């Protein structure tokens, strides 16, 4: 009984739970996979060769998942880690342009009022859209995720590159769940 009582001190509300939500491991898997696919894509390599450094703006992940909240931090993490990977592995091929809203917000917070200089216009947008088929019953919760990333030419609207990573997760409910 004493063992049970003392054991509860270490078994916290967050120490044993298993959920179907996207986690840190998925973040690493997805973004590493996307990095490799994007850098190996012939169309992207061709654009790098002809246009030099690609001026790219990134957008946080668009959550199209069923019943799965993607908090603000995670929405940025799933795209920012891809950008960081690309910067580390192909710094000469990308110029990262800050998001317009963020740029105005930072300027407004940090600079004295004055005329806005011209912002470098991005040529491409790196975006992600996560979708899922989620189901839950009294016995289990399961989710199939499709994490789709795209690099779109902003002037023509043409999708230069797109790839997806799918993840299947399931959590079986037990005693007291």
């Amino acid at each position, binding site marked *: 009984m004493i063992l049970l009582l003392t054991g509860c001190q270490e078994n916290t509300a967050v120490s*044993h739970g298993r959920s179907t939500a996207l986690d840190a491991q998925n973040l690493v898997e997805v973004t590493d996979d996307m990095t490799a696919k994007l850098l190996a894509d012939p169309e992207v390599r061709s654009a790098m060769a002809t246009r030099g450094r690609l001026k790219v703006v990134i957008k946080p992940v668009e959550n199209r998942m069923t019943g799965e909240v993607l908090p603000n931090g995670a929405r940025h993490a799933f795209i920012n880690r891809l950008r960081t990977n690309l910067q580390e592995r192909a710094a000469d091929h990308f110029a990262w342009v800050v998001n317009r809203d963020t740029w105005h917000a930072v300027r407004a917070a940090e600079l004295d009022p004055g005329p806005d200089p011209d912002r470098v216009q991005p040529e491409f947008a790196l975006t992600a859209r996560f979708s899922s088929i989620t189901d839950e019953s009294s016995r289990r919760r399961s989710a199939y995720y499709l994490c789709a990333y795209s690099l779109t030419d902003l002037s023509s609207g043409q999708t230069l590159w797109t790839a997806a990573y799918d993840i299947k997760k399931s959590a079986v409910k037990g005693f007291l769940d």
Partner: protein
Amino acid sequence: MTVTRSILFILLPSSFILLMGCGPTAAERRAHRAVDDYHVGDYGRAVHTLRPIAEKTDENFVLNNARLGSAALADYDLDTAENAFLNAYEVINSTGTNSGGRGAAAAIISERMKVWKGEPFEKAMVNFYLGLVYYVRHDYDNARAAFENSLFKLREYGEERGDRDDEYRRVESDFVIGYVMLARCYQRLGDADNARKYFARAAELRPRLRGLTDFGQHDRSNVLLVVDFGQGPRRVTHPYDGAFVGFGPRPEEVGSIPLPRIAVDGQTIGSAGPRGDFFVAPPVDLLALAQEKRWQDIDTIRAVKDVVGTGMIAGGAYMAHRAAYHSRGSDQRRDATYAAALIAAGALLKASSQADVRTWEMLPRTTFLIPLKLPPGRHDVTVDFPSEPGLAQTWRGIVAPDAGDATYYLRIQPATAGEHTWPPRKPSPAPAPAPAVGATDPR
């Protein structure tokens, strides 16, 4: 005597441990004070008290975060409300939370040792409020996901009954607020097909609420009032043995829910009051929903412990009677020892069969959703209940945007009646630019 000593050696420490666990801890007492603050309308103080308690990842982690979320939402502290409801959401969505000995401790020693995750209606409300916070912030993607999840949580009711579809449909029909808000999210995301689909589903489940499920009414609205009214259900135990009885009060014990009347700048809005055609019934009654209490394995264990404990006490009483009147010498000592052991063990079992009565006390009885189309600018909005005088709240400075919508959460309580100025506290800036479709933040 060796047997007696052994029994006492086991029973006395066990009794001591069980008795120690009976009283509320300091954190629980603070949480109860915060609940009292909430009910007298001192939301800021409730948030201040609950914030450090809600950080502790103990068995009350979900409950204290749900409490903190409620208080923060009423205080318009959206950052705190989002974090609190998100903490609760993550644990509620996890499975195996009570593994690693906690489940066994809850079954053997006290059910209060399990991580509280709430009944399905409480899980649904955590998701509903999380969705509401995102909706207020115009994060319609995440709001949609949270409202969808609120509907998932209700499935646990219907599936455990014989006739699944009918049962689930009945429970769903008591929670059309999830469908209506889900439809509004799709509307704001520009997906009219899905919006119509979910409004139609809500209308199908509750035909009397056809006015609330009207696509055009919501599409035109630029202000949404979310009005929480009344007190939600509480866990009730038997007064003599502490066994779990269910949730109370029952709806029939406290009467019907009064309908709100809305006045803008002193003029009653005809379509959004009990005299109009918009509201003919409350969209949800948590007192009714709580009557669907889900029977769990631990309830069976607790019931068995209670019955066996009662049997052991009765057996001990019989042995004591025999020792007193029918035995002599060593037989009398043996019977007396057995009687004491049986009574003590029975009392221990009964003590460990006490029901877990932890409750999310801030829950309302109902939530009204009132979409309004107002001229852009600032307005004074009054919500009152003609059949319940003394509850009227007037909010001065409510902003109606010229594009998109602004959402206002109002908690109706006797202590908070009167005039207020919007916002109730200085708001913190939104964490990031919202990907809104023509939306305007009320702040």
